[in-house]
């Protein structure tokens, strides 16, 4: 069973439905006992970093996640959920993340061409930098769906794929049993479902 961690941000309906579509049971929960009994964890997230990081801590979920990850359980952060895995974010100030993967989150405006639109929104190709068990069903040139204005940087050791948007933006990361996708697998059609399936088979 997969636990989708509920800490009061975002709509988890599509995410839960996408696991149902690949035949995996996923439960949306904030119950530490249930999360402890799950085989793997999903950390979702949309919205602002500061607010989400705050809610993760005040709900006690930050400690639960750290404990489960230390025990070896696979965790996947999605979109803002991926950004929360890092040390720090510079979205409207400077805010601490979970520190599960070394690196920082910074505005894409700092690295992309001035005339490009922000957010980086739409379907873009995954450019694989390092083999990952999450990519085992993927083909060259597969596209996934992105919506973000900030990106993970200073984390080259952990980057498994990037997307090209005049600069290379971190698309996915991996460190031990901790995984992160900047894109939305639950909105990336069959390609996204294949990535979730691979995560369920870890």
């Amino acid at each position, binding site marked *: 069973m997969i636990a989708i961690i509920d800490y009061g941000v975002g709509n988890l309906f599509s995410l839960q439905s996408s696991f149902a579509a690949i035949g995996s049971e996923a439960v949306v929960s904030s119950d530490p006992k249930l999360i402890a009994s799950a085989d793997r964890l999903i950390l979702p997230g949309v919205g602002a970093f500061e607010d989400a990081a705050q809610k993760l801590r005040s709900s006690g979920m930050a400690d639960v996640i750290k404990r489960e990850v230390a025990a070896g359980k696979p965790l996947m952060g999605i979109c803002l959920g991926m950004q929360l895995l890092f040390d720090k974010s510079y979205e409207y100030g400077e805010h601490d993340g979970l520190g599960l993967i070394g690196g920082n989150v910074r505005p894409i405006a700092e690295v992309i061409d001035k005339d490009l*639109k922000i957010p980086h929104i739409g379907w873009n190709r995954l450019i694989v930098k390092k083999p990952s068990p999450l990519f085992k069903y993927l083909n060259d040139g597969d596209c996934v769906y992105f919506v973000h204005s900030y990106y993970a940087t200073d984390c080259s050791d952990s980057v498994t794929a990037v997307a090209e948007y005049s600069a290379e933006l971190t698309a996915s990361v991996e460190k031990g049993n901790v995984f992160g996708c900047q894109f939305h697998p639950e*909105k990336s059609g069959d390609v996204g479902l294949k990535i979730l399936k691979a995560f369920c088979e870890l």
Partner: protein
Amino acid sequence: MITKRIIPCLDVKNGRVVKGVNFERLGDVASPVELAQYYSSCGADELVFYDITASAEGRALFTDILTETARKVFIPLTVGGGINTVDDFDRVLKCGADKVSVNSGAIRNPDLIYQAAKLYGDQCVVISADVKRQEGEFRVYAKGGREDTGMEAISWIKRCVDNGAGEVVLNSIDTDGVKQGFDLEMLEAVSNVVNVPVIASGGAGKIEDFLTLFRTLPKVDAGLAASIFHFGEVKISDLKAEMARAGINTRV
């Protein structure tokens, strides 16, 4: 780089997909959930569901259909029609919509876009504008294209984007249903003043019309159409293969 998007639009009334020609003569096409699944499997990059029901029963039926679609279709879903308050945003987002498009609601309440963008983020708010040439200018129309608001369209759209709309759907009433190609002049005028994605709507009749759109106006991000997809005049899989062959960045 980001690929150009192809978006089928499903006008839904009383639980069925309908499509008007110049917004009139509505005809029944198919089940929205089935059609959405079919389009997703053909390579549609996104879906727009437009609720054109007026009754409360119709609205409840629409949200049921939306929920059922979000359960089965895993590409971005934009919902419009009858969005007048932030509660309406909440209602459709809870059913699995990713973006919400406002039209008449933003004309009636200019604050709506700002309020919604603050709550849900710019990327969630789409301004959908029905625009028609009138007295030598582009004019915004309300109520499904039936009512001239008297407002000049380009400055109005720009104001909506300044207030937080993260995307523009530009529907040309002049070319809608005519099937002689998108309204390139109108689209260029809008693309020149906003720096958010612009979606072309109204006028596509054949594959070549999409190629012309993306070649002529590289700033336009997506092409939207309804009846030509519903009636199989243009197959999305063929369209996208042609786009890729023409060197247009496409998800195939």
